[in-house]
């Protein structure tokens, strides 16, 4: 097994924290705006799971950094160019179909990803994955059922779900890329080899879409860059809002 320095694991945990906090933030934007009360509460549970996950990854990154920084320094004191989340996570919440279709794409990915991460030789990453995978199974149960309901519901719900799918599909490809950092960690048995997840992800997503009578888009366009900090315009705006109070009076307890 190749020797891996702590910095690499810290960077890896940080980007997984970025993924979780960004999608968690997007889902939390539904608060008081859900289609009915029961669903509003369910969405907030999902958001809470992701925020909790972000805290675990960032805390681990802070522990490895060992330079006095804490979880919030990772979330609040890094600019959007430093964030390394996948682009899919940062896109605005959109309508309910957009949110649910995105959740399906993300949840299936997370399921396979976390299954692998659970096998990590790094005990902390493995433990976080073990907790997160239970949440993810529930998230996927919800999102796959919702995509069925939307696809098979009314003309309008089907149209909205299909539009969301068409708008989101091009952002899914970067989930299966592997950059140098990830390659190094995958080789060392610490990180996940994303490329190995694509076949299973595609099969499962397509089978749910088929049941929902939605058409998987052609792979015509691919937008990438999240892991390099090359983001859409939306992330900067989101972080401006998220970080504004914390940064107005830096270095304080809240």
């Amino acid at each position, binding site marked *: 097994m190749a020797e891996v320095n702590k910095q690499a694991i810290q960077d890896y945990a940080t980007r997984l924290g970025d993924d979780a906090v960004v999608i968690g933030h997007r889902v939390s934007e539904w608060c008081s705006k859900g289609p009915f*009360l*029961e669903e509003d509460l*369910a969405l907030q*549970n999902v958001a809470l799971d992701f925020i909790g996950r972000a805290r675990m990854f960032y805390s681990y990154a802070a522990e490895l950094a060992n330079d006095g920084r804490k979880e919030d320094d990772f979330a609040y004191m890094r600019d959007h160019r430093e964030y390394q989340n996948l682009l899919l996570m940062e896109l605005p919440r959109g309508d309910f179909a957009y949110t649910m279709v995105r959740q399906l794409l993300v949840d299936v990915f997370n399921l396979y990803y976390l299954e692998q991460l659970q096998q990590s030789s790094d005990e902390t990453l493995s433990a976080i994955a073990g907790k997160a995978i239970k949440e993810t199974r529930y998230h996927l149960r919800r999102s796959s059922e919702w995509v069925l309901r939307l696809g098979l519901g009314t003309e309008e719900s089907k149209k909205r779900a299909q539009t969301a799918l068409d708008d989101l599909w091009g952002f899914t490809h970067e989930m299966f890329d592997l950059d140098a950092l990830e390659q190094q960690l995958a080789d060392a048995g610490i990180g996940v080899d994303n490329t190995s997840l694509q076949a299973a992800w595609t099969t499962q997503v397509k089978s749910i879409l088929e049941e929902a009578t939605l058409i998987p888009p052609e792979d015509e366009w691919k937008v990438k860059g999240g892991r390099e900090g090359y983001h859409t315009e939306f992330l900067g705006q989101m972080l401006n809002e998220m970080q504004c109070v914390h940064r107005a009076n830096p270095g304080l307890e809240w």
Partner: protein
Amino acid sequence: MSAENLQLFEIFLRSKRGLDHKHVGSLHAEDHEQALEYARDVYTRRSEGVSIWVVRSDDICASQEDDSESFYDPSNDKPYRLATYYQLPDEVNNM
């Protein structure tokens, strides 16, 4: 068209293994499966349950207050069904 076209379900929770399911409230959902999931999100936010039952509210048949006399009063004159009815000597403990 509104959420109120969804059905009303009654929710029962078993708070821990070995105890009965207890009625905790109700909610709206499309079907039993969804009712179960929402019950998880609405009624077990603080780990209040280890098992959930959902029942369509329409499926519950409840006795009426007017039935009280004919239902329950007849038991009132049958105290011999209760253990405390029987006076035993003190020497016979713990029966």
